[in-house]
C-alpha cells in the first residue's frame, strides 16, 4: 500500500495540514485507491508546510506547500507514483535546505510516526537507553562530559557537570526535570521535537535518571503548546506499556516514571527555579541560588534540570559515544545546535548544524532573505533577552564564546529576522515592556527597573532631554544587569543596549508628535 506522509506538527496544522489530510483521504476514496496516511512530525522546512510526502521505491518525494484545493490536481499528476507537479520538490532528502544539515538530535523527526514505538526502534531508538541500563552511572556521566554538551536552553552550562553533581550526592529521592517552557520568540525546536519524536525526549530523560539515580521525572510544558502536551502524554503511556518507563525497565532493577505538567502562560517559568516552584503548584517566583537545584531542587531534593534539546541530544551521545558528538562543532561549542530561522524570512524553518555556521549563512543560504524582499537590517539571536545584531556582525560564527565577544549570545539558536522597516527604538521599548509584563516581581531591579526603562525610552522617543535620558538608560541597564536575581532582569539590557549601540540613528529620529513639523521643516 502506498504510504503518504502528512505532518501532525502544530506548525503544519496551522497552515492546513488536517484539511489536506482529509482532502487526500476523500480523493483516494473517490478514486478507489488504497493509501495509508502517516501523520509524521515536521521535517523542519516550515516554509513548505503542509509538506506532503509519498513513499516511492527511490525514496520519499516531497510536495509542498499543499492546500486542500491542490489535492485533486496532485492525484491527476500521479503524485502517488512520485511524478512531477508544480508543487513537487523531488526527493525530500535531496532538497538542499534539508540535505545540507547535520541532523543528530532531529535524525528521526519528520521521518517516523511520532507515536509508533516500533518505528522509533527501527530508526535507532532506545539503543542509547539499552546501553545506559548496562553501564555504571558514572560512565554515563563521563560520556556526557566527553561529548562537550552544554545546556541548549540558552545558558550553555556544561551538562556533564550538572549530572555529576547529582550523581555524587548520596542515593535517595532525586528528580529529573525537563524545561519545555519554550517561551522565547523565534524558537520552536523543543515543540517540533516533542511533537515529532517524543520518545527521544523520554529516552534522554530516562538515561539522565539512570545516571543521577532519580526515580521520577517531570516535563514542564507551556500551555501555549497543547499539541505537545497531548503527544507527550500519549507517548508516555505507550512507553509505559512497552516497559520503557515504569517499574523494572526492560527487566532491569531500574525504575523510573515520567509526568507532564502544563504551565499557564508565565514566561518567567522558563527560569529553572521558577519552573520548580510552578511544578510544585506555587507561584512561579524565582528562588535564590545557592542552593543550586542540583543539590536542592524539586521538592527540595537533588534534581537534574535540562532543556528539551539537551535531553534529546543524550540518546545519540550514549549510543555512538561522547567523542562522536564532540567531533562536530568549533572551539568550546561542541556538537550541533538546532537553529531556528524565524520572523521576516522567506524560508523559515529548523536547521540543525554544527556550531560555527554564521548568521548570514543561515538567513541567506537557508532562509533565502526576508519574506518582504527588503534587506535584513537586524537579527535578534537567542530570544527576547538576546541582542539585536546589525548586518555588520552577520559573519560572526555561531559559537558561545565568539558571540559573547561581540556582546551577544547564541542562546538556544533562535533567529528572528527584521527587515529595514524596523524601528529599533520601538524594539528596545518592547524589550522593557515585556520585562514589566513577565517579571515575577521578586527583585527590584527587574520589577521596577523595567517600568522605569519603558518610561525613559518613551522620553527618548519623544525627544525629551535625549542625551540625558540615553545616559540614564545605560545606567539603568547596568543596574538591572548587575542587580537582578535571574536572567529576566539581568538580560533584558541585552536587547535594549544592543539596539542603542547598533542602531543609534533610530534613537535620534524626530519625535512622532512633531513629525508634521519635522516634515514641514525639510
Amino acid at each position: 500500500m502506498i504510504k503518504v506522509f502528512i505532518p501532525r506538527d502544530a506548525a503544519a496544522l496551522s497552515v492546513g495540514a488536517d484539511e489536506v489530510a482529509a482532502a487526500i483521504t476523500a480523493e483516494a476514496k473517490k478514486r478507489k485507491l488504497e493509501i495509508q496516511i502517516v501523520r509524521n512530525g515536521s521535517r523542519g522546512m516550515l516554509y513548505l508546510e503542509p509538506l506532503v510526502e509519498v513513499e516511492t521505491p527511490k525514496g520519499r518525494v516531497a510536495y509542498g506547500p499543499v492546500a486542500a484545493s491542490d489535492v485533486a490536481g496532485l492525484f491527476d499528476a500521479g503524485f502517488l507514483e512520485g511524478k512531477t507537479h508544480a508543487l513537487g520538490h523531488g526527493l525530500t532528502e535531496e532538497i538542499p535546505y534539508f540535505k545540507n544539515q547535520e541532523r543528530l538530535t532531529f535524525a528521526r523527526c519528520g521521518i517516523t510516526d511520532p507515536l509508533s514505538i516500533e518505528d522509533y526502534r527501527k530508526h535507532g531508538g532506545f539503543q542509547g537507553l539499552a546501553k545506559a541500563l548496562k553501564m555504571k552511572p558514572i560512565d554515563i556521566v563521563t560520556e556526557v562530559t566527553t561529548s562537550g554538551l552544554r545546556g541548549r536552553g540558552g545558558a550553555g552550562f556544561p551538562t556533564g557537570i550538572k549530572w555529576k553533581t547529582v550523581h555524587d550526592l548520596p542515593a535517595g529521592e532525586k528528580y529529573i526535570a525537563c524545561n519545555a517552557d519554550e517561551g522565547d520568540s523565534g524558537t520552536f525546536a523543543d515543540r517540533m521535537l516533542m511533537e515529532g519524536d517524543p520518545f527521544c525526549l523520554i529516552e534522554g530523560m530516562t538515561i539522565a535518571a539512570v545516571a543521577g539515580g532519580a526515580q521520577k521525572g517531570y516535563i514542564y510544558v507551556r500551555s501555549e503548546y497543547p499539541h505537545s502536551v497531548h503527544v507527550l502524554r500519549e507517548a508516555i503511556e505507550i512507553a509505559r506499556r512497552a516497559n520503557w518507563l515504569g517499574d523494572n525497565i526492560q527487566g532491569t532493577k531500574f525504575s523510573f516514571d515520567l509526568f507532564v505538567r502544563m504551565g499557564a502562560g508565565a514566561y518567567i517559568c522558563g527560569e529553572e527555579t521558577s519552573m520548580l516552584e510552578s511544578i510544585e503548584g506555587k507561584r512561579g517566583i524565582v528562588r535564590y541560588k545557592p542552593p543550586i537545584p542540583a543539590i536542592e531542587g524539586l521538592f527540595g531534593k537533588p534534581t537534574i534540570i535540562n532543556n528539551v534539546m539537551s535531553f534529546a541530544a543524550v540518546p545519540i551521545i550514549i549510543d555512538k559515544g561522547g567523542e562522536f558528538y564532540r567531533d562536530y562543532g568549533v572551539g568550546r561549542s561542541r556538537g550541533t545546535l538546532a537553529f531556528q530561522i524565524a520572523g521576516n524570512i522567506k524560508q523559515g524553518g529548523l536547521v540543525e548544524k554544527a556550531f560555527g555556521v554564521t548568521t548570514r549563512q543561515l538567513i541567506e543560504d537557508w532562509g533565502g532573505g526576508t519574506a518582504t524582499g527588503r534587506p535584513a537590517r537586524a537579527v535578534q539571536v537567542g530570544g527576547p533577552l538576546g541582542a539585536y545584531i546589525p548586518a555588520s556582525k552577520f559573519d560572526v560564527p555561531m559559537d558561545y564564546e565568539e558571540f559573547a565577544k561581540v556582546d551577544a549570545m547564541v542562546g538556544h539558536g533562535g533567529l528572528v529576522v527584521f527587515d529595514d522597516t524596523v524601528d529599533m527604538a520601538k524594539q528596545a521599548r518592547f524589550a522593557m515592556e515585556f520585562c514589566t509584563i513577565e517579571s515575577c516581581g521578586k527583585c527590584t531591579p527587574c520589577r521596577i527597573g523595567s517600568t522605569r526603562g519603558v518610561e525613559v525610552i518613551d522620553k527618548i522617543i519623544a525627544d525629551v532631554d535625549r542625551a540625558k535620558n540615553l545616559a540614564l538608560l545605560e545606567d539603568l541597564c547596568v543596574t538591572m544587569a548587575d542587580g537582578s536575581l535571574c536572567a529576566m532582569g539581568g538580560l533584558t539590557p541585552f536587547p535594549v543596549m544592543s539596539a542603542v549601540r547598533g542602531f543609534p540613528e533610530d534613537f535620534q529620529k524626530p519625535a512622532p508628535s512633531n513629525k508634521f513639523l519635522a516634515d514641514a521643516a525639510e
Partner: protein
Amino acid sequence: MAKKAVKKSNGSQVDQVPAPTPAEVAALASCARHGNKPDELLEIFHDLQHQLGYVPDATLPVIARALNRSRAEIYGVLTFYHEFKRHPVGKHVVKICRAEACQSMGTDALCQHAEQSLRTALGGTTADGMVTIEQVFCLGNCALSPAIMVGEKLYGKVDPKRFDEIIGGLEKEAAE
C-alpha cells in the same frame, strides 16, 4: 459552602449547609481526581477553566480546604499566571501573538485590525459574547508569523484578511 446559622420557627438555631454550587462540585471533583495534592494545583485550575471557561472565586475556599492550603496561597497562585481567568470569557478565546517574530511580520497591525473589527480592546470580549481576544507572547509558530490560536487550534501567516475569515468561520459555526 459556608455554614449559615438559621433560626428555625420554633426558635432553635441549627447549622444549615447550603447545597454546593455546580462550580464548587466541579472544583471538589477535580481536586479528588488529582489526589488532593497541592503540587497539582495548576492542573486543577486548568481542569476548571476547561470545564467552566474560567476559575470562579467561589471555588477557591473549596480548593484550599481540599489541598490543605490557605486561601491566600490558592488565590496567589491563580493570580500569578496569565493563562488563568477569574471572570467569564467569550465562547471562543482568540490569542494573538505579540512577540518579536510576529512583530517582524506585522502583528501590531493585526492587533489593531482585530480590536477595530471586533470593537473590543485586547483582553476584552465582543458585545455578543462570542469572542475574547487577548495578547500572548509566542505560540511557537515563529517561521509562519503572525500566529494566532483559537481554543487549541493554531493558525499561521494570519493577515487581517485571514483573521476575518477565521472569525467569520466561528460565527458561521455558531449560526449552524
